[in-house]
């Protein structure tokens, strides 16, 4: 029951992020999305008595819900990002498009979800989150929202890992976290160069 509520919240935070036109608010919704994901990992880990998932849940809360949003806000101040980020897809079209994507993904993932154990709707939601994150990347021209789209996509994949496989091996989860941090370092360098060029 708790997991159902949080998985709904996970999707809701992503949908709200798609309509956001301010950068800090978008970072906030990414942080909320990661917070819900971390709580979900803790809940599923507790239900399965999987210590590795509990550790990754805590790491998600610390790194994705707190660390990365803080760094993104810091970059935004340091490199003076444009904070007015109007999505290219107008709201009235997005209102039609997002439910269409959700219905389409549920239909698309039906043959896969039939083969899985546990709550199959979770898998469909993680796949639809993946498509919505791609939409987030597509509907913005600025780099910062595109980065948040990429990070949300990573969250959707993490959710798929939790729900479809009842957790990936610990080593892989930690490796993904390491790569994420490396991505942040590279992004910092790219932003830095952008500043020195202009």
């Amino acid at each position, binding site marked *: 029951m708790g997991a159902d509520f949080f998985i709904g919240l996970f999707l809701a935070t992503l949908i709200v992020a798609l309509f956001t036109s301010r950068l800090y608010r978008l970072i906030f919704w990414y942080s909320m999305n990661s917070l819900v994901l971390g709580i979900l990992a803790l809940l599923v880990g507790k239900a399965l008595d999987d210590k590795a998932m509990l550790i990754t849940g805590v790491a998600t809360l610390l790194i994705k819900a707190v660390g990365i949003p803080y760094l993104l806000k810091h970059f935004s101040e340091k490199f003076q990002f444009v904070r007015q980020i109007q999505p290219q897809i107008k709201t009235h079209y997005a209102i039609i498009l997002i439910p269409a994507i959700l219905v389409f993904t549920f239909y698309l993932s039906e043959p*896969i979800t039939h*083969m899985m154990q546990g709550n199959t709707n979770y898998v469909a939601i993680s796949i639809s989150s993946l498509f919505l994150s791609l939409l987030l*990347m597509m509907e913005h021209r600025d780099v910062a929202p*595109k980065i948040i789209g990429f990070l949300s996509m990573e969250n959707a994949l993490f959710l798929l890992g939790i729900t479809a496989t009842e957790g990936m091996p610990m*080593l892989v989860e930690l490796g*993904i976290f390491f790569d994420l941090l490396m991505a942040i370092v590279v992004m910092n360098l790219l932003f830095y160069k952008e500043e020195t*060029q202009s």
Partner: protein
Amino acid sequence: MMLALLVLPAAVMFIVSFLKYRKAKFLLPISSFAILLPIVKLFMLSKPYAILGSYLVADKLDTYVLLVSSLVGIGVTLALLTLGKHVRVTDKAYRRFYRFFAIFWVGLIFSILANHMGIYWIGLELATLSTVYMIKTNHTLAAHKEAWNYMIVGAIAISLVLFGIILMYASAKPILGERAMQFDLLLQHAKEIPSPFLFEMGFAIAMVGMFVKMGFFPMNLWLANIERASFYPVAALFSGILESAVIIGFFRFSRIAMQINYVHLFGFVFVYMLLTIFIVAFLIFRAKDFMRLFSLSGVEHMALIALFWVSGGTFAALLHFGAHAFLKPALFLSTGVLESNGKYRIAGALKGYSGKKGTLFWVLVSLFLLAIISLPPSPMFFSELYGFGAMIQTAKSSNHILAMIAAILLLLILLSVIFYRFVAIYQSMKYEGKAEEKKVYASELLALILFAVCLFVLLLPATFDYLRSIV
């Protein structure tokens, strides 16, 4: 112990890249050369050799790929010695290039030697992220834009690969538990996987991610634009090393998929590659500069490797892979000289070389250009001969022999378009345009000689025997 030896040169390179002493600049290429030593040692050990439990296991296939990559790495390092003489590059950018080159090597070693889907992905992601900054070493707006482009499209591609891996893992977890991540176990138990459709879905999604990374349909131009915007050694690294890490993943995943449903795998890869080569042939026909030309030709060859592999021509695929890994970086590195004076000018690019070094340079570049379109005795001539032979064998045993033969004929027509374009370009380089004096430096010539020797070694009967024994 072996893992420490493999990673040590890269770790030294990483640390030295932070030192600002003038002499430290010379230590960077030395540490890069040292990468070859542990790889040669690993190559000589009996296989399979467990480097890190069941996570990293060296077999004949991955040590061959690693050896080829390390030789390409040495060639690139040699060319980097004179990078500053052809393009403007600051000391800081040069050191930073090596810093990311070290991280790139670590990622590459892990992804090539991985016997674990998760570790393979982590290594590939690390190698991809480290190349982002290498693109940016060129301080131009185009390079900056393409670095971001690579970051975003590369991230999407790699996410698709992870998505596919999760589905494949989910399909095999009921029988193998957490060990469902291991390539060797998946191959052994492929026929027992309870939901083969789920595995095939995962495989198809992961492959689309890998194909996007290699510039296949529908993303044919993104890699070419990135290589155009970055310095030529980066393009050589992409074509000679990074694509090796991607293609070895394709080899490993497709071997498992072959056990599950060969007809599905073959149909999927065949149609995808035919579409890719169809578009690439026309893009090559319209290419107006060396970088895009070589980059698009790289896409064509990677598509051919994938086709030969799934057609059962594993020997042909591995020979083609080796030949491409040496030829393409050699051509990319030559563009440093070919374009340093005339920029994008193709006409007369092979004129204006004087002295022994100049003559040797244009002779080698001519040979490489003709070898890339498979003129004998290029190793690509033999690989295509065996590869198309394997495809015809597959066609004979299929239920749609006429359709298959028609598809192979279409493929040959497309390849002849590419052949025609390359010959026209070679003639333009040699016989048209004005002769402008161009300077060739010893280190870049050494790199080309190294690649020529490697190509010659590929043609030896002993190498053929070795390649046949890999799979």
